[in-house]
């Protein structure tokens, strides 16, 4: 695990040195800023009687924007992780250094997770702005950020796996987008299937939409934690096996 740190540092460097990173961050903050602006304006005009939600709840839950952003952000963030190294051949010098496969996988994963966190960090300012004119439920906010972090971490783990499965960055991007989209559509199934059917149960269990509503209201359900824990651990485990497979195969 000693090799974790240098690889982690290099990955962060490689991400932030590209224009892609800054384009992604800019687009992300623009979309979120717009979202926040429209929300606050809406709340200000309609008055407190118009909604049973707080602005924090509306910002993180019950909104398509969160998923749209994840759908646009995650695939380009993760596509290069392994695919680029395999395409350019640098994977050969990386893997012939005294490093272990889990260390390489974890370092790369931790670096995108850090970048993801760095993208969300400026949005904390919105809460500070809100607090100037109203009360902010900091507990609910913390739980909302936990939700954002978990959903993103799960998607990023799938992205990392897709990047390890192919040496084409574009294919990794498409596959990751399909997984993210697929999970979302499966979750939407919660609203279109009848209550009590097996399909409904499955859909509600994987529905990021419903999960984020819970998290945004300050509900931290252990089922959600287990679900996203599995969404992180399982892809990472398969990635390690994939790395070992094309290495020793």
């Amino acid at each position, binding site marked *: 695990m*000693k*090799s974790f*740190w*240098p*690889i982690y*540092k*290099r990955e962060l*460097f*490689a991400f932030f*040195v*590209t224009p892609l990173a800054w384009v992604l961050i800019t687009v992300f903050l623009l979309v979120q800023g717009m979202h926040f602006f429209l929300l606050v304006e809406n709340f200000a005009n309609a008055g407190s009687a118009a909604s049973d939600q707080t602005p924090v709840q509306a910002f993180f839950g019950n909104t398509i924007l969160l998923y749209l952003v994840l759908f646009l952000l995650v695939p380009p963030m993760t596509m290069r992780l392994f695919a680029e190294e395999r395409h*350019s*051949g*640098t*994977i*050969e*010098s*990386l*893997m*012939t*250094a*005294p*490093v*272990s496969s889990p260390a390489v996988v974890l370092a790369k994963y931790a670096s995108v997770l850090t970048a993801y966190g760095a993208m969300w960090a400026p949005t904390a300012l919105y809460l500070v702005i809100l607090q100037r004119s109203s009360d902010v439920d900091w507990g609910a906010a913390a739980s909302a950020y936990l939700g954002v972090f978990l959903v993103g971490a799960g998607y990023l783990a799938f992205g990392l796996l897709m990047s390890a499965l192919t040496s084409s960055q574009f294919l990794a991007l498409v596959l990751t987008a399909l997984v993210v989209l697929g999970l979302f559509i499966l979750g939407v199934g919660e609203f279109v299937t009848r209550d009590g059917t097996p399909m409904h149960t499955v859909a509600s269990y994987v529905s990021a939409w419903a999960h984020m509503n819970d998290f945004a209201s300050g509900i931290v359900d252990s089922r959600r934690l287990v679900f996203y824990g599995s969404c992180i651990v399982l892809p990472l485990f398969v990635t390690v096996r994939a790395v070992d497979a094309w*290495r*020793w*195969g």
Partner: protein
Amino acid sequence: MISVQKLVKRYGRGGSGGGGELAVDELSFEVARGEVVGFLGPNGAGKSTTLRILAGFLGMTRGSVTVAGHDIRDASFEARQRIGYMPEAVPLYPEMRVVEYLSFRAELKRVARARRAAYVDDAMAKVNVTDVANVVIGHLSKGYKQRVGLADALVARPPLLILDEPTAGLDPNQIREVREVIRGLGKEHTVLLSTHILSEVEASCGRVLVIAKGKLVADGTMEELARKRRSSGANLVVRGDLEMARSALQALDGVASVTSTTTGESHDLRLLWARAIDDSARLRATEQAVSAVVRAGCLVREVRPERSSLEQVFAELTLGGEHAREDDVESSEAANEGS
């Protein structure tokens, strides 16, 4: 330092059970500490595959490989710590500066923080890239990239360097520079380098392993390889009766044909041996030819044996087949001994 026993690598489906493409076929050789060994073979002979297995990048199908006393299957990690490997394509991260990249590689190879800067400086000095230390790798010329790759291989001061075609794609001046660097490295490291250029081995290696189609076909010093050079004929310039000389030569054992051209008073005679012969046989055959011509009453002005070049030796070794050589028993035994 390196011990390879019956190494087999089969690509694609089938694994050890057959099927797939056989890249390395029961290859065995040893490299002792302090040697600079050239790994020679035509493109596609299995050189890169073998080196990748040695470096711990590829798994093997069968056999055993020990590097610096560590089995690369059971103790891959320990083995990799003792190897400086330069892949054929010299992959580098184009967005990093040279010094950043080498520091990253040194850290990855477990060079202690306190010694890292000194090791990096030292490696850059050895391959003459200190002047581009702060240049982004993507902007470097091919020759510089090649040398940065070399610096990467030796930055952690490993006892063993494995270099896959270190001079591929360079211009003649750069090739000379890289060769000089490699010769210098031979003093401190055991070096195994692959190439398909013969003069490369002549210039920098003490010993050469020749492989073709995944099999070892020769193992020895350059002189031993040169001894495999054979002669296909000789040219004689004589003065006197042409017909007498011709018939005398034609009567000799082992002469297949004699052709002649006449310029002024001298005759150029070109003999072809019945088959390609090695150096000692060539000397005897030449003696016989000269004495036959003299006995025929001619005067000998010039004798020039035709000898194959090292390139032809290489071609014969690696293409195999056609030039069957019965008198080669001695030397091929020596090759087997070394493996």
